């Protein structure tokens, strides 16, 4: 379900936005328009849609228009042109009363510099959104404490913002945005002012909260690692334009143009790619059903020297090599006796960077086995796929060992 549908959203700062709009329509770039007219193009015909429950990251360097874009969504900045449909209703056409109502009930916002009210206690800060809606003191206090509980700060309700650390202050900011129970969270560089370790904690915490609350989150950041960590989809902005929209892997593996390519070139692909993205499907031998001759035949057909052995429910049991299969066939041993059980086994979401040292440890003797959370076989990562990932070629599903 579409939560936000943004179409041709444009913001021009300057004396005669109408003229600027014309230049934008003629396809002129931000730089040219600035030189010609002195007007700044904040956002240039941005179009995108966000699904309900999605974490949509808008990323760009400073000056790319990302903070302006998020403020156009709740009209903290008035758009010059374009439409923002929230649940099908066009925000840009709302009168001030409807807009206020939408801000109160549908959208919570978290700010880069926290923007907590210094004259109010933590609890009063969290209550603010409810207070201005006229919710009775007792009820809003209860909701505020619940919301503080979500971020683990219920014991600090009576403190004042300046008594808290940066990370705690931003938790309060998050609690304040959550207290109204909005469908949408707008987070403007919410974690950028925090130091890297706390930032990572906050990202994890946000993802935890998100998995239970399923809000629609629009997250602004200039930090690619952050975008890749938390985004379901990422929109990359440059000079007010959206250059590319896609999943983290799309952006990394199929950059739309040189700019995106440059942006992502420093990213360590192995940290982003997961075992499941470089694994290939594997032939499996079902123990108790297939015998050694079937195993040998399959290896011959596929040109491999190993086959994965699973139980009837596809639970991974071990690796059977060609020599092992021969021994079973000739000496009458059982498959269990020759099964190799110390193969590298990882889950689907293990980053390639974690997988590599494990495979190196046993000298890439066998393919790494990828299972899901229940230990069922999903696929294998062969040596060639691993090297392809390291070489930066991205996903290579055709690799063979």
């Amino acid at each position: 379900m579409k939560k936000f549908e943004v179409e041709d959203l444009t913001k021009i700062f300057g004396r005669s936005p109408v003229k600027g709009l014309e230049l934008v329509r003629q396809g002129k770039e931000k730089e040219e328009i600035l030189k010609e007219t002195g007007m700044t193009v904040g956002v240039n015909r941005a179009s995108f849609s966000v699904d309900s429950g999605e974490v949509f990251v808008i990323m760009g360097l400073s000056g790319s228009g990302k903070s302006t874009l998020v403020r156009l969504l709740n009209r903290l900045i008035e758009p010059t042109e374009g439409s923002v449909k929230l649940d099908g209703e066009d925000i840009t056409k709302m009168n001030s009363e409807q807009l206020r109502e939408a801000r109160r009930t549908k959208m919570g916002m978290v700010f880069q510099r926290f923007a907590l009210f210094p004259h109010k206690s933590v609890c009063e800060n969290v209550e603010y959104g409810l207070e201005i809606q006229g919710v009775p003191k007792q009820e809003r206090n209860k909701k505020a404490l619940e919301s503080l509980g979500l971020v683990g700060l219920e014991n600090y309700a009576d403190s004042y913002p300046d008594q808290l650390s940066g990370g705690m202050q931003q938790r309060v900011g998050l609690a304040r945005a959550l207290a109204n129970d909005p469908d949408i969270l707008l987070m403007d560089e919410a974690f950028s002012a925090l130091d890297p370790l706390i930032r990572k904690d906050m990202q994890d915490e946000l993802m935890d909260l998100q998995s239970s609350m399923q809000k629609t989150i629009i997250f602004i950041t200039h930090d690619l690692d952050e975008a890749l960590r938390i985004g379901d989809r990422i929109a990359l902005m440059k000079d007010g334009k959206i250059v590319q929209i896609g999943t983290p892997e799309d952006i990394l593996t199929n950059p739309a143009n040189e700019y995106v390519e440059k942006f992502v070139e420093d990213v360590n692909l192995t940290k982003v790619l997961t075992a499941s993205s470089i694994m290939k499907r594997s032939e499996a031998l079902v123990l108790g059903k297939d015998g050694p001759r079937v195993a040998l035949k399959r290896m011959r057909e596929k040109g491999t020297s190993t086959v994965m052995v699973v139980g009837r429910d596809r639970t991974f049991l071990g690796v059977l090599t060609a020599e092992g299969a021969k021994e079973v066939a000739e000496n009458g041993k059982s498959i269990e006796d020759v099964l190799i059980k110390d193969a590298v086994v990882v889950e689907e979401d293990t980053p390639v960077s974690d997988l590599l040292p494990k495979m190196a440890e046993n000298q890439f003797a066998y393919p790494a086995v990828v299972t899901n959370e229940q230990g069922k076989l999903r696929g294998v990562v062969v040596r060639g796929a691993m090297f392809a990932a390291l070489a930066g070629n991205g996903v290579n599903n055709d690799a063979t060992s």
Partner: protein
Amino acid sequence: MQLPKIPLEQWIDTFVTWLTENFSGLFDFITNIIEPTVDFFQMILTLAPPVITVAVISLLVLLASRLSVALFTLVGLLLIVNLQLWEQSVETISLVLTASLVSVIIGVPLGILAARKQWVQNILTPVLDFMQTMPAFVYLIPAVFFFALGAVPGVIASVIFAMPPTIRLTNLGIRQVPKDLIEAADAFGSTSFQKLFKVQLPLAKSTIMAGMNQTIMLSLSMVVIASMIGAGGLGDVVLQAISRLEVGQGFEGGLAIVIIAIVLDRVTQSLGNGKRKIS
């Protein structure tokens, strides 16, 4: 060749005469508000014998401020009583309180307006500059024209002279509220009034109080000058001393003014610094 002098003097005189003739109703109305206010403050301050009033005032100061300020108030005001200047001091304090009250009632809303509307600030700024730099004595003349002699023109002149800091600092205080806090207030759907009363004014409070403090101090200095048009109070004591060249009497009057100034200053300052307790 000599250019003819622009008859600015005549224009102003004519304008003032025109105002006096056509707006006497308005001036009567203002008189009817200010006179009772001054009388009211005077009545309160003379309700009890001076010593008891001084004790009560010191107690109130203790509640609003620190012990040291309260002690200073007690000793200082008792000294004034001892110098037999209490009656004149009460007149002066009443005039100051009235002038400050009027300044705040008019000044704070004007300051808020100036902070919200750029054009209001654009108009107000030169007017305020004018009000503050014009020699204070000059206000006394039209004030006498419109309101005759006595306490009322004294208060009016004081208001004109003392109001600018309240307007300026209210404007400044509200404009100084960080932009992201305003954005936060907006993003959660505050109405304009909610934003003003729940965010802007509380955060501008200490700046506004600093403006009020200045207003009170300025109106005290103007009220003393206003004794020249019969406003009465401690200014009379000083004025008499000047005309008779009595140094001692002049010093006594001056000392009383200083004591009142210090008390008013310290009390308004401690009101301005919020008393939020850090646990």
